[in-house]
Structures are given as structure tokens and as C-alpha cells.
């Protein structure tokens, strides 16, 4: 297990690489869902304003 994390001495380069790329992947998912939620909220507001006028 220790050897696995050590990655033949390249750990300091390898694990940050995985962290950055997988992190970007996760952030993109969160970001996309947030922007969809915001668009839906904006649409709801527009509809409510339109319906009331």
C-alpha cells in the first residue's frame, strides 16, 4: 500500500496531476448543475413577473 502511494518516487507529481484533473472534472459537474439551477430560477422569476403583469 505504501508503495502504491509512493509511485516509484513520482508521488509529488503524480497525485497532484490526478487531483487537478479529477478536481476539474468534479468542479465542472457542480458548476454545470449550478448554472442550470440559476437559469431555472431566472426563468421562474420571469414567468412570475409575466403572469402578474
Amino acid at each position: 500500500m505504501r508503495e502504491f502511494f509512493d509511485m516509484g518516487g513520482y508521488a509529488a507529481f503524480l497525485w497532484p496531476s490526478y487531483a487537478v484533473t479529477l478536481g476539474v472534472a468534479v468542479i465542472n459537474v457542480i458548476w454545470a448543475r449550478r448554472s442550470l439551477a440559476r437559469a431555472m430560477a431566472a426563468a421562474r422569476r420571469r414567468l412570475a413577473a409575466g403572469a402578474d403583469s
Partner: protein
Amino acid sequence: MNWTWFHRLGSPPHIYRLAQQLTPWFAWPAAALILTALYGGLVLAPPDYQQGDGFRIIYMHAPAAWMSLMVYTTMAVAAAVALIWRMKVAHAVAASCAPIGASFTFAALVTGSLWGEPMWGTWWEWDPRLTSELILLFLYLGYMGLRGAIEDPQRADRTSAVLAVVGIVNVPIIHYSVTWWNSLHQAPSVMRLGKPQLSLPMLWPLLVMLLGFTLYFVAVLLVRLRGEILLRERSASWIREVVGT
């Protein structure tokens, strides 16, 4: 040839529902493929003869670089379709692509640099592939900057679409000129961003990872696309059903 299917693709409510339904069909297989590739690349694949375990960075760097180019191409094709057929949905696709592509270009640069340090001994080399990635990042940032600077949404869509098409024509030219430039000054001792000899147990996780990230891209795109469509839709009737009040 019946082109109804193509024109239906231009219908926002149709695309919205399609995107909603299709997302899980891309998201879950993507996750499964990426996890499989992670296991294959980190655990199963043997260390490289020259680079030892360090070569495993390829399983992150190559997909990131692949994403950066594939997403830009998608963005440019969508932009071209939007300009030619005047499809709002295509503009929405292009807008959805930009943040995804830019962030993965960033990841490609970081992983490229991290891979380079143990291989070259420096955190940066003007390696043709990394230099091209850097320029690609500038292209993305320019696209997003242009979009942000124009207030009118329709004009923003169409202006940035022209930029995307101009950009994609330039990408091969830029890549060629950067490679040409780099080859002029290549000191024999500098190693290009390592291409380890890939045997089959090392290769299959890479291919699976590339496929997994491609499906992942479609899934994320579909989510963003829904939001972008909503932003561009003024007519209330179909939105009401979808969004609830």
C-alpha cells in the same frame, strides 16, 4: 432524405427534454469507464521502462488535452451550424462548451508541467504540445471575454460564433507553426513530453479513459445546454411545464 429530424434538433423544447432524458445515459457509463480506467492505469499497468511509475500521469494529461481540443472543435462546429442555419440551440451548445474546454485546457497545462518536471528537470519547457495548449487556453479566454463584453445576447452569440470559427481554422496553423518553431531549436538532450512505449496493459486504460471522458463531456454539456436554452427562451408555454412556478 427526410430532414425532419434535423429541424427538430433546432426546436428548443424538444432538445431540452432530450437533453434531460439522455444525461444519465452518458453520465453513469462515463463514471464507470473512468473508474475502470483509473484502476487499470494506476494498479494493473506495469511501470514504464524509462519513466517508471511517472508515466501514469498520461492517464490524466492525455484525456485533459484530448478534451481541450475536442471541446473546442465541438464549439466551433456548433458555432458554424448556428451561423449557417440560424439555430439558437446551436448557439446554446457553443456557449455551453467554453467553460468546460477552458478548464480542461488548464488541467492539461498543469499536468503537462507536472509531468515535465521529473522528465526535463524544469517546470516548463516550450515543448510544442504544451505551447499549443497554452495558446488554446488564450483562444478560449478570448472567446469567453468576447461573450462577456457584449451585452446584447443575440449579438454576443453571433459575434462569438464568428470568433470560434476563425479560431478553429487557426488551430492547425498554430499547431504547425509552433511545431516548426520548436523543431528549429530542439536541443538533442531535451526530451519531448514523454511518449512512453505503450504495451497493451498500459494502452487499454488510456483508451478507456479517453472514451470515458468523452461521454463525461456529453453529459456535462447536456446539463449546461438546458440552462443555456432556458436563458434564450422567451416564450412561456413550454418553459412553464419544465420549470414549475
